[in-house]
């Protein structure tokens, strides 16, 4: 199954769809290049029907002729299209290899958004597939709001996709309402009814995007549409870095991605999207390997495996020992010996710790090295 999981990055499409996020052409090229370099085999580069600027962006990414790291395979560049002939024509004009044909399949969307019928949805997909095939492009058929779609209609929709010659179907939890157990059941059932590969596209509205992706894979899905940092509509998508690391460390499946560049790629995307990476962001946040509390810091000093599932270098981060309100005497002793060459005896360390805690509470933050030294000097000089 290892080799069987395909990763598709949608930072440039769903990611850019996040409110207020706009990538320039250069930024799109750069992000695509970074993704190819770290080993992501496929991307969704944009939504050409938006207009001439977006077409230029997608064309530029295609023209860059990017190769996936070491394998030298060409990066698979896809464009997003609604199930409309004109959207397909716009996508084809960009020279992409594949198209993601998307339309809502839930009754709530069909009735209240389109004010149409299920039959109309099927006709639209048929038309779009026809246009795509006429242009010799591969295509994925995507079910928007699949999680709120009647399962028998969803299967009918995917069967039609299979009949029309789609290479893959996409299951979108557009509003992030699935839980891992419900999505497992649905994907398992779909897998029994169709033979096409299934791609998971899950949103994070209730904080379960990554868990839902993994549940889908467990049930037999074989592709994931994720984005860097989880960038995407509202709360975003399943973060690519979480999916890759969870597969590697929780399930022993290595997708061959150069994870040591995750931080670097995420920083670039953060800059381009003007959305700083929260310091606590799973996998790539700078605080993920920062240890302050006495219990944790002591454990880390004895053996990092006590509190780390993987080492910071694996994702391009560094371990930090922070001295603050929750620090213990062992961390102080370690810090002074290792960084300042001063051996603290247990008594000095305990008395210093009291002063450190008081200062941290007063300042409402951890202490800088200079502040630590000052407190140490005051203590040893008998200053109260």
């Amino acid at each position: 199954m290892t080799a069987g999981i395909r990763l598709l990055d949608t930072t440039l499409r769903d990611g850019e769809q996040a409110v207020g996020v706009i990538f320039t052409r250069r930024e799109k090229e750069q992000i695509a290049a970074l993704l190819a370099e770290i080993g992501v085999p496929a991307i969704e580069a944009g939504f050409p029907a938006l207009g001439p600027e977006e077409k230029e962006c997608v064309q530029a990414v295609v023209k860059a002729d990017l190769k996936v790291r070491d394998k030298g395979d060409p990066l698979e560049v896809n464009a997003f299209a609604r199930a409309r002939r004109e959207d397909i024509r716009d996508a084809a004009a960009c020279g992409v290899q594949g198209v993601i044909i998307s339309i809502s399949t839930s009754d709530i969307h069909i009735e209240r958004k389109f004010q149409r019928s299920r039959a109309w949805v099927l006709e639209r997909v048929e038309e779009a597939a026809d246009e795509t095939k006429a242009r010799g492009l591969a295509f994925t058929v995507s079910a928007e709001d699949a999680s709120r779609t009647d399962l028998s209609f969803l299967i009918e929709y995917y069967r039609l996709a299979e009949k029309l010659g789609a290479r893959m179907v996409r299951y979108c939890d557009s509003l992030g309402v699935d839980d891992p157990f419900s999505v497992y059941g649905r994907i398992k059932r779909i897998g029994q009814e169709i033979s096409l590969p299934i791609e998971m596209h899950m949103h994070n509205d209730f904080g379960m995007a990554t868990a839902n992706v993994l549940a889908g894979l467990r049930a037999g899905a074989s592709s994931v549409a994720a984005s860097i940092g989880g960038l995407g509509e509202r709360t975003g998508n399943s973060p690519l870095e979480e999916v890759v690391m969870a597969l590697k460390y929780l399930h022993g499946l290595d997708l061959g991605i150069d994870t040591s560049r995750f931080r670097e790629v995420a920083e670039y995307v953060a800059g381009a999207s003007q959305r700083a990476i929260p310091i606590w962001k799973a996998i790539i946040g700078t605080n993920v390997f920062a240890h302050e509390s006495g219990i944790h810091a002591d454990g880390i000093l004895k053996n990092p495996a006590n509190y780390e599932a993987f080492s910071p270098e694996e994702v391009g981060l560094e371990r930090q020992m922070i001295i603050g309100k929750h620090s213990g005497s062992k961390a102080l002793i370690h810090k002074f010996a290792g960084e300042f060459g001063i051996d603290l005896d247990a008594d000095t360390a305990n008395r210093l710790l009291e002063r450190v805690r008081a200062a941290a509470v007063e300042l409402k933050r951890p202490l800088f090295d200079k502040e630590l030294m000052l407190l140490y000097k005051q203590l040893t000089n008998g200053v109260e």
Partner: protein
Amino acid sequence: MYMQRSFGSAGDVPEEMLAAKIQGQVYIDDTTLRDGEQTAGVVFANEEKINIARMLARLGVHQIEVGIPAMGGDEKKAIREIVDLELPASILAWNRAVIGDIQHSLDCGVNAVAVSISSSDIHIKHKLMRDRQWVLDSVRRSVEFAKNHDLYVSVSAEDASRADADFLLEFALTAKEAGADRFRYCDTVGILDPFETYQRVKVLVEETGLPIEMHTHNDFGMAVANAIAGLKAGATYVNTTVNGLGERAGNASLEELVMALRYCEGIDLKLNTSLFRELSEYVALASGRRLPAWKPVVGSSLFVYESEGRASGATRDPGTYEIFSPDEVGLSRRFNVGKYSGPSVVYQKLREYGHHPSEEEVRELVPTLRSKSIALKRSLFDKEVVEEYTALRGRKGK
């Protein structure tokens, strides 16, 4: 068997697990003030601790984990002040499984304690540098001491997710014999997935009969999903934090868990959820960690409509793209014009300003506004949209 750590040999998930529903009452034990504050770099002022405790009580959580009395000084003072407020919530203090720690808790007047010790061999050998028997003895001694002083006791098995299953059960049964009121299952390094969580918690629920509390971490982004999996397996308490504040990547976020229970699982905890945004903002400020605009449940951009796909649905009926309405969590709905916007947003925006553009005018405006947004590399201000419309009308001599 299915528990193996690879999909290749995973096999089917049992039907019983897929069909499992959360039974009965779910209690929140919020630990923003303890695990939240333990986060590297975060320090709450005493006044902030008190305000957060008050807000949590107003929200309606069952129990508030207020801190670590053994740290002494200010920490103890803040805890005592919170106890003195007589909030309508149980007040719990965190302790190592050490009698001295529990004495500090007694000094503060709390009515409940967490008594915590590591349960995994990796921690026992490499951190505690002891053996399993020493751990069991510590549990027994400290729980008995706490119970003799009429405290409610949650025994916390640190690193339970990496503990040997048989030993963890022995640990829990020892705690029960010593009088523990509940058992806290800690996925300290955040390495579980929901399916494994379910299986492991199920065993503890069935074999110990103790109420089980989930304490999950978000290292792989699955803290909320794992907490819910534990509840499905029969756990009844969840240890949450506001904004998911906590060590490393944080804990299960209070607001995400509560809303996921309400809307993904059909369990309403009857909390005052309209306070969520206010509470999250306060904790964000006090912890010095800005709330991302995209934060699930409370992020400021969640109910902003910009892309045509969503906006065209939402202008007709918000239910097409909203699982709950913004006022339920203290947010509001807004329309924004940007690169991905189409006729629905533009029309909506102009109407907000008292204009009634024709379909043709909107069609003409859309590409102009998109280009403008791309050129500026941001969403447009309302004023800019109205200006473009006025200019268009001007060109047409209207």
